[in-house]
């Protein structure tokens, strides 16, 4: 099972990233644990400088923008 983390302090872009992730795993039928990381101290341990960021199994895949559903599916495949 994959662990997907969405890093972001709760702005609108972070929310749409979260929504897209949920949609992607639902559509692709992937078992994954989705965690929203909103604590800035924890976010900074991933060394990202722009949010939202998408972390799959502890690897930062996307930062500073909202990925669309198909892109997330590709990342998880």
């Amino acid at each position: 099972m994959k662990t997907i983390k969405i890093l972001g302090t709760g702005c609108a872009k972070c929310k749409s990233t979260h929504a897209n992730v949920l949609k992607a795993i639902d559509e692709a039928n992937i078992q994954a644990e989705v965690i929203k990381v909103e604590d800035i101290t924890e976010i900074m341990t991933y060394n990202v400088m722009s949010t939202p960021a998408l972390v799959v199994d502890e690897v930062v895949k996307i930062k500073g923008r909202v990925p669309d559903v198909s892109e997330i599916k590709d990342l998880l495949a």
Partner: protein
Amino acid sequence: MFDWIQFFADWLIFGVFNIAEESRLGISLSFFVYDTLKILLLLFVIVMVMGIVNAYFPVERLRDYLNRKKLYGFEYFFAALFGSITPFCSCSSVPLFIGFVQGGVPLGVTLSFLITSPLVNQIAVAMFLGFFGLKATLIYAVSGILLGTFGGWFLGKLKLEHLLTDWVKGILANAQEKAAYEEEKRTFIQRLPAITREAWDIVRGVLLYIIIGIGIGAAMYGYVPEDFFEQHLGQDKWWTVPLAVILAVPMYANVAAIVPVIQVFVAKGIPLGTAIAFMMATVGLSIPEGTLLKKVMTFKLLAIFFATITIFIIISGYVFNLIL
């Protein structure tokens, strides 16, 4: 350049909606459609261009540049310049701040970036271009970058590192691990849809504010007497610039709505310099950003930071009024 929009607006209002061409309502509506379409188009184009620029110069690369190169004092200028091309989101200001100081960029240089990033942003630039023209926009952008350069340099000279919060000091103490970042591997064509979508999202996000702003502006235009502000808030009153700056601080969220209203103020006699100072304070000094920055700065540092920008903006306002 925008004649075709005017043509379309006239056609829509006078032709399709059949409103008399000489009527006050007809003229107002035609202006409204023209202004809104022109601004939206400018905004979309500017956001697209910025999106493409940013796809090639992500903040990580900018940080490494500021970090590695010996820039002989120009690092403040470059930080401010980079700040102006990076799209600003107040929720990213803390990660940016930490990322910069963690990567070894001096505090003053980081602050140069942090001052300019909201001050010269794509929405403000597009709105300015649409309502005040190229010359005023260039003055706005160039002075915003200079303000960031000198503001950061000045704050750097004050040696304020001890006023950072303990959390940041802890990060600084065990920093210096070279942050590797993955280069984007997707090609330009692959990225274009995402850039376009983002640009569209930004335009859609401010659409309502622009319409409200233009609406208020249009309503005011007809009812505020000519030269009203010139008599009451003209250039001979020294306190107008500080007053405008202080009034602007709580107005952050509505930058798109504010420019169309300011334009009416200018048309009715407020000096352009005062208006630019007001704009800068609107976007450059915001309470929401301040609350976020409290994570990394002690109250004292935050107060010094805000006070410095405020004073610099007020000075710029006076300079603009002298030269414009």
